[in-house]
C-alpha cells in the first residue's frame, strides 16, 4: 500500500537517476540519516558507542571496501586484515609525527633545541617544507608535525590504497583461488612486517601502538577522554561519505567496468575495458576504504592495538564473511553483514548472560554454534545474502496486498 511506484512520477533525467527510485525508500533513507545524525548522538553512552555502534560502523566501511573488490570486481581477497593494519599503522605514524631517517653527514653540535625521537636525542637544525630537520652524530631525521587525526585517517587511506595496488599487481596474471592465496601472502607479510620493524611502533618495548589524545577543534576524538558521541560521529561521517562514494562509483563507468571484469574478463576486454586499469582501481579504492576502517579501528575504537591479535587472519575472514552473508555486490549488504556479525554476538550475550543468567563460557560456546548455524541457514536459503532477502521483501511489498 505505502510501498509502491505508482504515482511516483519522474519528469527529469536527474529524478530518473535517483539512487532510490521509490519515494518511500528515499524517505526511509533520509529518516535513517536524520536519526543517525540527529538523535543517536544525543542519547548514546559509552557502552552503546564502544560495544555496538562504533564497531558496527567501522566494520561497515571495511565491508564496503572488500565488497568493491570482491563483490563488484570479482577479485577474492584474504588480505583485509593486513590492509587494515596498514591503515592503522599509517594513521599512528602520522598522528605521532612521521620520522624519516637518513645517514647523517657533516653534523656539528650547535645550539638548536634538543628533541627525543626513537629513543635517541636529536638537535633541531632546520626546516624543510612541513618537515623539521634534526640531526645527531649518526642520523639526520626529517620529522613531520603532528597531523590532525581526521586528515591522518584520510592519508592512511591513501597509503593503504598504494599498498593495495602493489599487492593487486599479481591479479593481472592470476585469478580466483590463486589470487586469494596471493592476497593471503599480503596478510601474513604485512602482519609480520609490523611486528618485525620497530620503526612502525616507534620503538616501544611492547610492540603495541597507542593512540595519543588528539583534537578536532576543541573536541577530543582519540584517546581515553573522547566522549562517546564524538567517537560515534567521527565514524558515522566517514561511513556516510564512504558509502556515498562507493554507491556512486559503482553506478558509474568505473563500477560498470569492474562488474564487466567480474562477469567475464575476456568479454570485458573485447568490449574495451582495460583490465589493468579496472583491476588496479578496484584494488586502490577497496584498499582506501579498508585503510580508513583500519585507521578508525585503531585510533577511535580500540586506542591500543597489537598487530597479530587485532589484524590477524581472523579479521580477513570476518570481513569476508560479512560480505558473503550481507550480499556480494551490494552496499546495503555490506551494512547488513557488518550488523549481523557485530550485533548478533552482543545480542546473544545479553540474552544468555544478562537475561537468562547462564554461565559465560556456555553462552560463548552457544554463540559460536548459533552464529555458525545461522550462517549456514542463510547461505542455503539465500545464497545471495541478506541484501537479496531485503530485495525480495521489497518486491513482495510492492505487490502487497494483491500478489499475483
Amino acid at each position, binding site marked *: 500500500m505505502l510501498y509502491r511506484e505508482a504515482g511516483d512520477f519522474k519528469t527529469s533525467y536527474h529524478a530518473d537517476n535517483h539512487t532510490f527510485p521509490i519515494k518511500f525508500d528515499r524517505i526511509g533513507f533520509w529518516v535513517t540519516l536524520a536519526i543517525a545524525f540527529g538523535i543517536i548522538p544525543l542519547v548514546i553512552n*559509552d*557502552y552503546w558507542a*564502544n*560495544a555496538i555502534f562504533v*564497531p558496527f560502523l567501522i566494520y561497515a566501511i571495511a565491508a564496503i571496501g572488500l565488497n568493491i573488490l570482491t563483490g563488484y570486481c570479482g577479485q577474492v581477497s584474504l588480505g583485509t586484515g593486513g590492509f587494515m593494519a596498514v591503515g592503522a599503522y599509517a594513521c599512528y605514524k602520522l598522528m*605521532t609525527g612521521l620520522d624519516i631517517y637518513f645517514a647523517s653527514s657533516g653534523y656539528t653540535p650547535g645550539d638548536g633545541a634538543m628533541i*627525543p625521537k626513537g629513543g635517541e636525542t636529536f638537535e633541531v637544525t632546520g626546516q624543510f617544507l612541513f618537515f623539521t630537520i634534526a640531526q645527531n652524530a649518526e642520523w639526520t631525521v626529517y620529522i613531520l608535525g603532528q597531523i590532525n587525526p581526521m586528515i591522518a585517517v584520510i592519508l592512511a587511506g591513501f597509503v593503504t590504497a598504494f599498498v593495495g595496488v602493489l599487492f593487486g599487481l599479481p591479479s593481472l596474471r592470476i585469478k580466483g583461488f590463486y589470487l586469494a592465496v596471493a592476497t593471503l601472502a599480503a596478510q601474513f607479510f604485512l602482519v609480520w612486517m609490523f*611486528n618485525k620493524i620497530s620503526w612502525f611502533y616507534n620503538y*616501544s*618495548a*611492547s*610492540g*603495541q601502538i*597507542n593512540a*595519543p*589524545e588528539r583534537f578536532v577543534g576543541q573536541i577530543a576524538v582519540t*584517546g*581515553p*577522554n573522547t566522549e562517546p558521541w564524538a567517537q560515534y560521529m567521527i565514524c558515522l561521517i566517514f561511513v556516510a561519505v564512504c558509502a556515498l562514494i562507493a554507491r556512486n562509483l559503482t553506478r558509474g563507468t568505473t563500477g560498470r567496468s569492474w562488474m564487466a571484469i567480474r562477469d567475464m574478463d575476456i568479454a570485458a576486454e573485447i568490449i574495451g575495458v582495460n583490465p589493468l586499469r579496472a583491476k588496479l582501481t578496484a584494488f586502490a579504492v577497496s584498499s582506501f576504504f579498508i585503510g580508513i576502517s583500519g585507521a578508525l579501528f585503531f585510533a577511535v*575504537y*580500540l*586506542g*591500543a*592495538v*597489537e598487530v*597479530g*591479535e*587485532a589484524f*590477524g587472519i581472523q579479521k580477513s575472514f570476518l570481513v569476508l564473511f560479512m560480505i558473503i552473508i550481507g550480499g556480494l555486490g551490494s552496499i546495503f549488504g555490506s551494512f547488513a553483514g557488518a550488523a549481523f556479525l557485530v550485533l548478533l554476538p*552482543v545480542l546473544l*550475550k545479553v540474552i544468555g*548472560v544478562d*537475561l*537468562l*543468567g*547462564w*554461565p*559465560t*563460557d556456555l*553462552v*560463548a*560456546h552457544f554463540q559460536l554454534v548459533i552464529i555458525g548455524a545461522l550462517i549456514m541457514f542463510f547461505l542455503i536459503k539465500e545464497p545471495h545474502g541478506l541484501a537479496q532477502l531485503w530485495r525480495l521483501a521489497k518486491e513482495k511489498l510492492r505487490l502487497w496486498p494483491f500478489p499475483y
Partner: protein
Amino acid sequence: MKRKTLAAMALGAAVAGSSAMADLVIPDLSYRTGPYAAGGTPFSDGYQDYFALLNARDGGIGGETIRVVECETGYNTEKGVECYEATKGEGALIYQPLSTGITYQLIPKATADEIPIHTMGYGRTSAANGEVFNWVFNYPANYWDAASVAVNYLLEENGGSLDGKTIALVYHNSAYGKEPIRTLEALSEMHGFELSQLAVDHPGQEQKSQWLQIRRERPDYVLMWGWGVMNQVAVQEAANINFPMENFIGNWWAGAEHDVTPAGMSANGYKSLNMNRVIDYPVLEEIKTMVHDAGDAAGDGSNLGSVLYVRGMYAAMLASEAIAKAQEIHGVADVTPAMVRDGMAALEMSEGRMEELGMAGIGPEFSVSCQNHGGSGEGIVQQWNASASTWEPLTDFITPDKSVIEPLIAEDSAAFASENNITPGCL
C-alpha cells in the same frame, strides 16, 4: 534433561540476580573459551571462589556482600573492551583482566574513568611507577622482575657467571611476550650471555621451526614467555628434540599443571617461575567446605588447588585486602573505586596477615606506596615432577636485580608520560 537443567539454571540465576543487588561489584573479565582457556578457567575459578568464600564466611568485606560480575573475553581485546564498558556501569571497583593486551586497552580508559586496575605479574611493566600510572598497579611482581629472577637463578646455578653462555627466549609474539626482551637485553650485556629471540605467533600451535632452530643452535638455556596452548606445545616440542628439561625455564604463566601433563613423563624436570607458592593452605579446605560443598563453586570445581587456581585466589585476596584497607582509611563500608585505589596504594602484605588469612607464605611480603606500585618483584623457581604430578619448589623467593629494572621503568614510564601529557605526581 539438559534443557531442564538449563531452564532451572536460568530461573535460579534470575532469582539470584534480582535479590542479590550487592554493594561491592567486582568484575571478572575471564576467558573460559578459546586457545587460552586452559589458563583462564582455573584462574577465574579461584578468583570467584575466594569472593564466594568471603561472602559465605564473613558476609563479604566489612559487612558488605560482594557481587562478582563475570564477562567472557576469550582473551580478545575487542571483547575485553566490550566487557569493560558493559561492567563499569554497574559500579566496578577493580579490574583484573588477566591479559596484557586487554590491559593496554584499559589503562587509558580506566584512568579516565578513575577505576583502578590490578595486573598481577602481567600488563604494562612500567606501571610500577605509581606517579605516572596513578590508577594501575602491578604488585607483587612484573615481567621485568621475572626476567631478572630467572637470570639470577641461572647465575646461582652457574656459580655467579653466565659469561659465554647462550640463552634462547621463546616468546609469544605479542605485547606480553615482548615485554621481557628489553630487560633480558640489558642483563645479557651486563652478564655477558648471548640472547637469541624466537617469536611464536598467536595462538602458538606452530612451533616446529623455532624448536628446529633451538636444536641446531643448542643454547645452554631456554626461557619461555608463553601462555595458553603455546606452553603445552613448547614442552612437547622440547621433549621431541630431547632438549634437557632442567635447562628449560618458563615464566610464571608457563608453569601450571595443564602445561606439562600433555607431554607425560617426558615433561619431567621442566622448570618454571612462580610468584605464589602452591601448598595445602587451610583456606583451600575452607573453600572446599563452605563454597564447593555448598554447590557454589565457579566452573566445575575440579581446579581447586591447582597452580593457577591458587593464583586467582591470591589475586582475589589482594583485591579484598585492598578493599578492606580502603574501608579502614575512609571509614565507610560501601567504598567507591577511588577509595579502593587509596586502599591499594596503602596495601601492606605481611607474613602475619597472610597466615591469618589461611595462606601463610603464599606470596612475598611487600608494601605498596604512591610511588611504587610494583611490590617486591620476588619469585620462586619450581620444577615439575611428572611421576608425582606435582610442582616442587626449588628455591625460596629470589630477589630481582632492581638496579637494572628501575632505570628501565623510569625510562618507559617517562616516555608514556610525555606521550600522554601526564605530569608525574601522586593523587
